[in-house]
């Protein structure tokens, strides 16, 4: 394995800035690995060799002329394919957007590039981020590099897979109900969903506007801290973005957790596999040994999360996805009139899961059901928020499983939507409350599959969340062993 693939974003930026490596060589290695592994993983929907090398050369020339390209100088980064970058297609894993090239950059794209990061490609996802396995992509499923017979989780499966396979040190995902944290857990990497409003959503193709939030994947806690520091901040183009600066996250490294009150959420432990629960207890013990005060805490309101989520998210999605009508961009299947064109285009362009959610959401919003479903679900968010607030009067942060199970086999859950939805039970409440939460790789199950621990914090307290993550990193079992055929491909490269 090349030593470069093991370099963290932090190390790359440092080495590029002090000229021990060039951005071009780092990016070349990342591209080579992406190209070598993609036939096995299907993690990337687009690899931008030309654009990435051009951007890397620019970083190198800035360095050569004595300038400073930024905090992520030369760091190869992958974007989930629902974030826009000029010149690269954005498909959202959907046939309806096949070949669509956005004429504008997402705010996160601009921010990353302004700090010298190099976008190497766009990663696979469940169509329009709807799913928990990345099997719902129109461009085929992404596989888990730890075990190619298993899913990487979803919907940001391509980003999780590419980081776990060492192709990029950092990738961005989006998390609407757990779409960063669950694949991070299933692939054995760090995945962060910031506070709603922390990161601008401008240029992120919306799934459920009131829940969507962009966040990083990385191998190390520090790399996620660094990346989030770059992409967080107020954006005039996103009315829902928060206007106060976030404190330093990287500075949390090494800070003591002594005296920190940590709550283990009872409701999320119930229903989780034994090995998952045991990993969580190990983490709790580790924190206790570091001086934290760990208690069990019950937040019964979170039990309502799943129902509320599967009304709110589809409702907003049904409206957000109306614009895919074959008029201005993307696929058009032309009929004899505009209405027929709308129907033909959407029927051909959307996959089964997207149609199912559009149907569910349209139903939940239609007259006669709005009050019973959508309006009620929005009130449940308030209940869940107040449940968390009550908990945070007793503890500083919360821990829980991320997913009730480790990575499951391809096809295992794809026939039963409700069973698939149930796997989001631990992650959804944070989205409904708008609170930050992250997945921290902590242990492996008896099959060698990664198990993550979820750390949850009050709104805007990413600092506390990262302090705990840095503390847990020391006792984590570390990266899982990759699938043999992936190791082989890496060694060949």
């Amino acid at each position, binding site marked *: 394995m090349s030593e470069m693939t093991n370099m963290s974003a932090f190390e790359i930026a440092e080495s590029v800035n002090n000229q021990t490596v060039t951005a071009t060589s780092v990016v070349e290695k990342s591209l080579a690995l992406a190209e070598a592994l993609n036939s096995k993983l299907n993690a990337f929907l687009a690899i931008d060799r030309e654009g990435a090398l051009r951007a890397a050369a620019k970083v190198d020339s800035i360095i050569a002329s004595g300038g400073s390209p930024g905090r992520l100088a030369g760091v190869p980064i992958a974007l989930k394919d629902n974030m826009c970058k000029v010149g690269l297609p954005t498909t959202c894993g959907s046939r309806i957007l096949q070949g669509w090239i956005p004429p504008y950059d997402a705010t996160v794209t601009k921010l990353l590039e302004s700090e010298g990061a190099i976008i190497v490609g766009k990663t696979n996802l469940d169509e329009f981020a709807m799913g928990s396995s990345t099997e719902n992509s129109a461009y085929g499923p992404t596989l888990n590099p730890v075990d190619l017979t298993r899913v990487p989780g979803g919907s940001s499966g391509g980003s999780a897979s590419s980081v776990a396979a060492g192709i990029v040190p950092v990738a961005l995902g989006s998390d609407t109900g757990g779409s960063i944290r669950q694949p991070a857990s299933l692939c054995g990497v760090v995945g962060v969903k910031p506070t709603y409003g922390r990161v601008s959503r401008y240029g992120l193709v919306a799934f459920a506007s009131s829940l969507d939030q962009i966040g990083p994947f990385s191998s190390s806690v520090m790399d996620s801290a660094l990346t989030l520091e770059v992409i967080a901040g107020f954006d005039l183009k996103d009315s829902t973005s928060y206007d106060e600066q976030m404190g330093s996250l990287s500075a949390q490294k090494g800070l003591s957790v002594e005296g920190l009150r940590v709550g283990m959420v009872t409701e999320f432990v119930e229903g989780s596999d034994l090995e998952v629960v045991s990993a969580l207890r190990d983490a709790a013990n580790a924190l206790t040994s570091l001086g934290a005060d760990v208690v069990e805490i019950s937040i019964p309101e979170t039990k309502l999360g799943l129902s509320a989520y599967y009304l709110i998210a589809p409702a907003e999605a*049904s409206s957000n996805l109306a614009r895919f009508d074959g008029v201005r961009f993307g696929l058009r299947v*032309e009929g004899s009139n505009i209405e027929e064109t709308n129907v033909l285009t959407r029927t051909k362009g959307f996959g089964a899961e997207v149609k199912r959610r559009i149907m569910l959401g349209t139903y939940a919003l239609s007259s006669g059901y709005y009050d019973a*479903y959508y309006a009620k679900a929005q009130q449940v*968010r308030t*209940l869940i928020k107040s449940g968390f607030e009550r908990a945070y009067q007793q503890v500083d942060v919360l821990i829980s499983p991320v997913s009730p199970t480790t990575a499951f086999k391809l096809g295992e859950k794809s026939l039963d939507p409700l069973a698939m939805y149930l796997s989001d039970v631990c992650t959804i409440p944070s989205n409904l409350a708008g609170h930050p939460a992250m997945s921290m790789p902590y242990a492996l199950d008896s099959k060698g599959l990664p198990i993550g621990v979820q750390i949850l914090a009050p709104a805007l307290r990413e600092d506390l969340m990262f302090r705990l993550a840095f503390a847990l990193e020391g006792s984590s079992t570390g990266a899982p062993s990759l699938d043999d055929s992936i190791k082989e491909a890496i060694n060949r490269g």
Partner: protein
Amino acid sequence: MSSRISPKEVAHVAMLARLSLTDEEAELYASQLSSVLDHASDIESLDIHDLEVTAHPLGLVNRTRSDSVVSGLSQAEALSQAPDEAQGMFSVPPVLGEPS
């Protein structure tokens, strides 16, 4: 299997959503949506109508921008992804009725 949603209702919802479903799809969705809504019966039965809704988790209000022109897209850029165009405009098959 409960039948909260009939295939006929499914067909109506599909019409609103501009989707065309086969009979099998309509039946499948009817049963799958019913099971999701069954699961949602826990919140349906809650008596919380006085409770406020969460509009923004952080309670942000009054977000505006100043009324100054920002350059947008050129006509060519605007039309660059259009499936069909004519005379600088997006071209589509005929519109049958007024918007409802």
